[in-house]
């Protein structure tokens, strides 16, 4: 059952999920905002890639870089225009804002492009595979694993070794205290959104690489994955998000393997029931960060 094939598949799924979850948690940690518009950043990345594909030949890597940059820019803009003015109001206000931003971006895509899916071009290296022993391993899976490992290492270095990173982690721990020590709140929050956009952009390359096309509603599934992964891992720590992402990737692969076909339809419902149970009985998740009172009784 646990063949090399299966392990690589699960690992690549887990790497992708870890990136997805991390992008959501980096904003949640600081603002306590569950960003519903996060999935739409992935969609924006996808559409950027689609539109660049129509232009006369650019190297694919350049197109990918531009797409990621556009996702980062969109993330930053949503923060500047929508989230910053409501930040001080209330948790409900900022949550509804994020829901509104999500609807806005989705319908803007409907309005500007179309509701029909658009095929996105990927270089040949994405669809090929290499032979390892007696199994074929898709290049795409290896690319995901390598890219996410590199990205996680880079982020760890940023967060642990630079002043900016230390300020980010401090803000995620105790935001008010960090502000009092002279760290500019706006800058830190903007940086968090930009990193979130970066992760969403990179995710969009691989997510759309799997599906092959982009639609206005493509962001919903990654958003749901991010929810599940962050709740499993622990919403209040960045390590938790990564662990939760990998764990969910493996869990998902195993469930897909062992669940009979007629129950497979309910896979999503099952995962979300697990989410609710974890929030009820172990709200801090696997990796405990700073605990904020989410229970009242």
């Amino acid at each position, binding site marked *: 059952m646990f063949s090399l094939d299966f392990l690589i598949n699960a690992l690549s799924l887990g790497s992708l999920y870890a990136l997805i979850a991390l992008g959501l948690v980096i904003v949640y940690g600081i603002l306590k905002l569950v960003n519903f518009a996060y999935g739409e950043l992935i969609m924006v990345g996808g559409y950027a890639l689609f539109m660049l594909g129509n232009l006369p030949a650019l190297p694919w890597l350049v197109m990918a870089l531009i797409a990621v940059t556009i996702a980062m820019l969109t993330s930053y803009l949503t923060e500047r225009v929508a989230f910053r003015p409501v930040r001080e109001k209330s948790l409900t206000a900022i949550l509804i*804002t994020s829901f509104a931003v999500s609807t*806005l971006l989705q319908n803007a895509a409907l*309005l500007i492009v179309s509701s029909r899916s658009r095929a996105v071009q990927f270089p040949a290296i994405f669809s090929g595979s290499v032979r390892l022993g007696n199994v074929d391993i898709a290049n795409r899976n290896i690319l995901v694993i390598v890219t996410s490992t590199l990205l996680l290492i880079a982020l760890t270095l940023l967060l642990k070794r630079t002043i900016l990173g230390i300020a980010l982690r401090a803000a995620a721990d105790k935001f008010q205290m960090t502000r009092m020590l002279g760290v500019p709140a706006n800058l830190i929050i903007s940086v968090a959104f930009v990193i979130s956009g970066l992760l969403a952009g990179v995710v969009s390359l691989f997510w759309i690489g799997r599906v092959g096309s982009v639609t206005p509603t493509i962001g919903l599934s990654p958003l749901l994955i991010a929810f599940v992964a962050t709740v499993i891992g622990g*919403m209040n720590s960045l390590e938790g998000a990564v662990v939760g992402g990998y764990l969910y990737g493996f869990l998902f692969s195993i469930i897909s393997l062992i669940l009979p076909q007629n129950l497979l339809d309910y896979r*999503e419902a099952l995962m979300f029931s697990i989410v609710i149970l974890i929030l009820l009985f172990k709200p801090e998740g696997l990796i405990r960060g700073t605990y904020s009172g989410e229970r009242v009784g």
Partner: protein
Amino acid sequence: MKITTWLKNIFTEHSTLFILITPLIIIALVTDLLDDTLTERIVITMFINLILVLGLQLFMGNGGTLNFAHIGFMGIGAYASVIFSMTPQAKSIGLPDLYPIFNPIQLPFLMALLLGGLIAAFCAAIISFPLMRLSDAAAVITSFALLVIIHVVLVHWDNITAGPQTLFGVDRYTDLWMSVIWGIGFIILAYWFKESSIGLKLRASRDDRYAAATIGINMVIVRWVAFTLSAFMAGIAGGLWAHFITSFSPKAFYLTETFVILAMLVVGGPGGVSGAVVGTLIVSIVREGLRTIESAINIGQLLPSTLVGFAEVFLAIALIVILIFRPGGIMGGREIRWLKKRPLSQKNEDGTNTTIS
């Protein structure tokens, strides 16, 4: 407190009810006189949305926690009422995989509708009891998770629903006055709930959960009652909608509708019943106006491609602008009334008055 004593004071202390209900009755009368199919369609949809918004207000406005699962219970109410109202012949075509036990059952519309509401409330009561202890982000994610779960179940449980396909063959029972009467009834219920002892406790726990706990309010129970009642209203709205639109699929009970209902409540102001009514009216009018423009542009082929999503983009921007400049909504959580409610004031030792409103 009894609902009848409240109604006696409808012109004085509870003028809110009178002020809110009168224009709605006028709208209904005008629609009835106009006898135009399109107008009637818009007004019925508005009244059904009003019930949904009132239900959301009842839990979210008084309790202060966001609830994404509301539309899910609308879906449960819709499918449950349809199962009890359809004729056996229609069921064998529309719902081929239905459990045989339900096949011969056919109830009068009102009973089916009530049963739909009660089933939605029952599901909510069971599911939500353990969830009501959660707050903040955890509460939001669980309610979102609940919406996804309900959606997945509606899409795949084809022994109860028609699966992802559109369900056909529902008889049209909901007419203008049916929706108006339920709408007005629920305005009274929502207002009464807000002012009732349990509503007051819920609002107290929203404003300060620790202070509320110290005076003996059980926040979990109070929230649970509100959630169940709110799901009942959503279920009734679902039943009314199902017997108005007559063919639908689970897609109707998901994020798009959630956004519209949430926008209506937030634009009006979640803090009060007046906000729910005003928000529903304004957003309905604006939305229909935008849709008319949208279809006029599409029919006239003024643009190279068809215009979709224009109304939603506008609504989303309006919502963000409202949240930035007037986070309490248009009504700011107050109720409309013409007589200023007599403040309960008490003399302090230093001669100043403390007003408890």
